């Protein structure tokens, strides 16, 4: 039985391993190798140097990275604050409304993010949905909302909302009701229950949700291009420019590597700490 399980496990994992080796590992290795090539070469048969990494500091690319990381951090924090009450409702209060909310939120994921962001442009632009009706009905104006840093953060919050909400709801559902009840019976205030019971016991969900939102937001591109009008050049934008217009693969690769390393360290640290079996509802 045991030996058969071992054999079957190895065999059934092969197609996925193969796919990820060709489509995930190989590209990352190529990017890593290109990142230590001299500028503007298109082959890996060159003498390695680290000039592309030096450019990261000397040409000011680190500023874009700081912007991206800062905006990802702010949007993750705001997402946590706005998702917590809703996730709590979904896990503990709503009943049937939870299903409605889950479907409604999940449905937005199947609409391309650029269509949804474009929808916000139509909603918020001068003469857009909000401005147009405000002017006609109340004589008010809504101007200058688009094309700045704040609206990029808004776009990140909007697009990555489900990635915070669902893990949080899952985490809160894991809090045993007995623990909360006991704390209340012993006279703990709602704030104390939140601080000493809810937050610690829901921490796997909090960690996964925050990590997902942060990582995806740090590597986001469409929000700054569509809503931000490139008022702020995000880091992924610099990577794209280096690869495409700049035709400088080593530079693009080095920039990509820096982002990948940050994401990789965060993801590795987090994923190694959570138990996927229990989060996904394993029996036994």
């Amino acid at each position, binding site marked *: 039985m045991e030996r058969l399980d071992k054999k079957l496990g190895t065999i059934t994992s092969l197609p*996925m391993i193969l796919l990820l080796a060709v489509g995930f590992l190989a*590209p990352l290795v190529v990017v890593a190798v290109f990142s230590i090539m001299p500028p503007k070469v298109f082959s890996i048969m060159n003498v390695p140097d680290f000039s592309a990494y030096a450019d990261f500091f000397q040409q000011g690319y680190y500023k874009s990275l700081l912007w991206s990381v800062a905006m990802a951090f702010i949007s993750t924090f705001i997402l946590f604050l706005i998702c917590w009450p809703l996730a709590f409702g979904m896990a503990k209060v709503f009943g049937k409304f939870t299903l409605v909310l889950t479907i409604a939120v999940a449905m937005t994921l199947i609409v391309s993010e650029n269509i949804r962001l474009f929808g916000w442009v139509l909603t918020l632009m001068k003469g857009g949905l909000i401005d147009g009706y405000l002017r006609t009905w109340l004589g008010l104006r809504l101007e200058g909302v688009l094309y700045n840093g704040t609206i990029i953060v808004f776009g990140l919050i909007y697009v990555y909302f489900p990635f915070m909400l669902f893990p949080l709801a899952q985490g809160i559902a894991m809090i045993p*009701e007995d623990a909360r009840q006991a704390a209340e019976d012993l006279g703990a205030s709602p704030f104390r229950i939140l601080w000493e019971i809810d937050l610690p016991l829901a921490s796997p969900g909090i960690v996964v949700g925050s990590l997902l939102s942060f990582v995806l937001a740090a590597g986001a591109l469409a929000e700054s291009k569509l809503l931000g009008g490139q008022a702020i050049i995000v880091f992924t934008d610099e990577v794209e420019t280096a690869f495409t217009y700049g035709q400088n693969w080593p530079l693009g690769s080095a920039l990509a590597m820096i982002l990948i390393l940050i994401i990789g360290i965060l993801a590795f640290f987090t994923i190694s700490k959570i138990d996927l079996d229990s989060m996904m509802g394993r029996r036994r």
Partner: protein
Amino acid sequence: MRSSRKTVYFLNAYGVLVIVFLYLPLVSVFFASISKTRYLTFPIRRYATHWYLRAVQSPTVSDLVETSFKIAIIVTVISMLVGFFGALAYARYHWKYRNAFQKIIILPIFFPQAVLGLALLIWFNSIGLIPSWKTAVVAHLVWIAPISTLIIAIRAYSFDPALEEAARDLGASTWTIMREITVPLLIPGVISAGLFSFLLSWGNFPLSLFTTGADSTLPEWLYAKMVSGYSPLVPSVAFISIGSSIILLVIAYITKKLVTSPAK
């Protein structure tokens, strides 16, 4: 622990507000798509459906639909197969590297798609592959097959391995067990995974952007038109893209109802 009525009321209202917030931009796109004028301003004064008519008749749009559909169908079939086996390795069998396998599968989902798309572009170029819709299939699979695996794994967690063990004790071969027990039990998960794979591939933008080469998918074309050279067709084509996803979901839902309801 019962929440007070005021809290329940507040949370429900908050939930409704969130749904409004999530769908407001789509409402704007919809109104824009039925506005008669070429240059859109709200409030819309005259409504017309002629942009839809134009979109349907446009050969560009049918090319885009064809490319998006081709990619999505192939991605769906492969994701279902890879996901089925992957889910067994993920949730069912006890093998040496199961833990590592579970974590490796999560990585591509945690990875910003635009960066993955760019990395794939460099990889394809450096091995001499010219990017086209075929390379986009590979790109989509790297992100979608793991998601499909997770969906099927959730189903695999909920079935009792004793069923398989009992069949084995009664002398069934691995192949018979697979055919008679594992596949029938997992098939609902496989179908949902297929549905999601199709929808995610159909709507994907960041991966397609860098990996389709000269070909173009619907979301990609929309993006190009949004960023430069705006076309009044954008809102209607966007809504055609969303509408087809909704139709597919409705068909899937009705089929499921028909299949699971007891025959009379």
